């Protein structure tokens, strides 16, 4: 696929990707997903998104070619590829911060390289394509266990680790009340994964009824529509005995709705990097001394958040791009032993050629869409 400008994508024939570095591999993509993060690109919210770029950071496929220094992979291996590009050698990678690698993105220091995610994230073509170049092939790509469904595998490249890390960063303790903002794939997965840490209540907030309904069933959580509330912060205070939630998790990011001042300054005039409504609600509805975990993506310059309340309430804020590689062993086990059912999130399968329709479907939340998988037409 190829980006042509806000809300415009199409499929085109592009030259076959090449090995550009001895540690590269070329992967033939068998499945890729559209992510909420891709919507920020699709809506033109991420600076330095160049016309002609190919998106896609959630993909699995078959190793087609390897560079001379690649040792752990061989041609023909079925692999899942974490969305972060990580060298495994820098002092960030060495400490498990694979989402913060310093040797995969020359264009910005605040973010590591990500497949198909603008030049701000390194200028790589992504996996919503037939073939993709994968740097540091011995570090990220992981051979899919033979008994694993590729639909589960493709969600292990981002959605499952991100949802899990969102919960993990919340520092959830037994008996806690956890509030999750956003019932997209990430929020739903965060709600499901929160239970691994022993809370007594998990609450999810959104304004799209079909997603709330889905979340309630999939993640065994309470689900509420903020459009039905006069004030979501007061609602959450009240439902926690006027104490505040123990942990609040932002799984919405920079296109949150629900506050006209945020929308005007963040979406209409772009005077801040998108809208920080969900984060504002998270900060204001967590208890004093509580933890706010952020995985929702925000743009680079800055956002309006009530930092004074963070100080006065003594909050801890923890945030990151998910460190997929660090979490994979644990999460593969959760899937293999039947505790997690990632593919249960998939509602749509679309041929890659219909990528424009698939983006519109997900972006406008049509046809009860939760997660879409793009399938390149089979070629021998």
């Amino acid at each position, binding site marked *: 696929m190829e980006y*042509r*400008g*806000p*809300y*415009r*994508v199409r499929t085109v024939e592009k030259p076959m990707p090449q090995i*550009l*570095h*001895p540690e590269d591999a070329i992967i033939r993509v068998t499945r890729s997903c559209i992510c909420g993060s891709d919507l920020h690109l699709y809506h*033109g919210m991420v*600076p*330095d998104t*160049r*016309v*002609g770029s*190919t998106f896609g950071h959630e993909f699995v496929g078959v190793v087609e070619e390897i560079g001379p220094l690649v040792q752990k992979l061989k041609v023909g291996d079925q692999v899942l590829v974490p969305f972060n590009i990580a*060298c495994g*050698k*820098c*002092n960030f990678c*060495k*400490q*498990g*911060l694979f989402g913060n690698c*310093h*040797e*995969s*993105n*020359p*264009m*910005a*220091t605040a973010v590591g*390289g990500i497949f198909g995610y603008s*030049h701000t994230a*390194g*200028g*790589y*073509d992504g996996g919503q394509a037939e073939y993709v170049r994968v*740097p*540091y092939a011995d570090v990220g790509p992981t051979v899919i266990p033979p008994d694993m469904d590729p639909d589960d595998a493709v969600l292990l490249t981002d959605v499952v680790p991100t949802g899990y*890390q969102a919960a*993990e*960063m919340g520092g959830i303790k037994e008996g806690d009340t956890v509030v999750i903002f956003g019932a997209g794939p990430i929020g739903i997965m965060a709600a499901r994964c929160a239970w691994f840490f022993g809370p007594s209540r998990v609450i999810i907030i959104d304004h799209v009824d079909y997603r709330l309904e889905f979340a309630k069933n999939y993640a065994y959580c309470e689900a509420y529509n903020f459009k039905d509330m006069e004030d979501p912060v007061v609602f959450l205070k009240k439902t926690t005995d006027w104490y505040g939630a123990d942990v609040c998790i932002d799984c919405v990011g920079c296109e949150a709705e629900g506050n006209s001042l945020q929308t005007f300054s963040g979406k209409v005039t*772009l005077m801040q*990097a998108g809208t920080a409504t969900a984060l504002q609600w998270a900060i204001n509805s967590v208890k004093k001394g509580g933890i706010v975990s952020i995985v929702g993506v925000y*743009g*680079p*310059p800055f956002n309006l958040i009530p930092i004074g309340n963070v100080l006065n309430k003594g909050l801890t804020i*923890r945030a*990151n791009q998910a*460190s997929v590689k*660090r979490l994979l062993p644990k999460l593969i086990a959760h899937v293999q032993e039947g505790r997690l059912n990632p593919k249960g999130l998939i509602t749509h399968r679309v041929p890659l050629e219909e990528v*424009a*329709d*698939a*983006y*519109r*479907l997900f972006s*406008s939340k*049509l046809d009860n869409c939760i997660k879409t998988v793009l399938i390149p037409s089979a070629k021998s």
Partner: protein
Amino acid sequence: MKKQHQDYKNIPGWGMDADPENEPNYPMKNYTGDDHHRSDYKRSAPQPKDVEILMSNERPKISAVFGNSVPPSGLSGMIRRYAFKHSEDRYRHWLPLIFADRINMFEGVVDDLRKGYFPNIIAERGWKMEVKHNPKGFAVKIATAAAVGYMIFLMLKKKK
């Protein structure tokens, strides 16, 4: 470059309360102390530079690997080059980049036309899905856009 208080370890109480377990990033981060080696680590060999790469001025050299898709070109490219003269801290880095993205969209259309290809914007925008799954909402959207357009047209006509 390295300016450090040489005798900092002699400052009374230095390091007394250090608690390696108190790592707020745990378990995201498995603290090894390597942070103090800064940018001193064994890198992979550098990827040969085959296209123009704009580099953040907050780093000394480009990363060992990088993406080589769509190098800067045309007017948007000039704006991007200007943007990269400023750090990621500055609005004059990010606003020009967003501006360049918008210009780039028009360059894309011109480029298509020059190749004799007329972009099918309705298909690229996936409107078929709106018509299929949200006909009422979509009709309202189109009608509103048309009404606003007509009003602007009338206002301009009056001015003349």
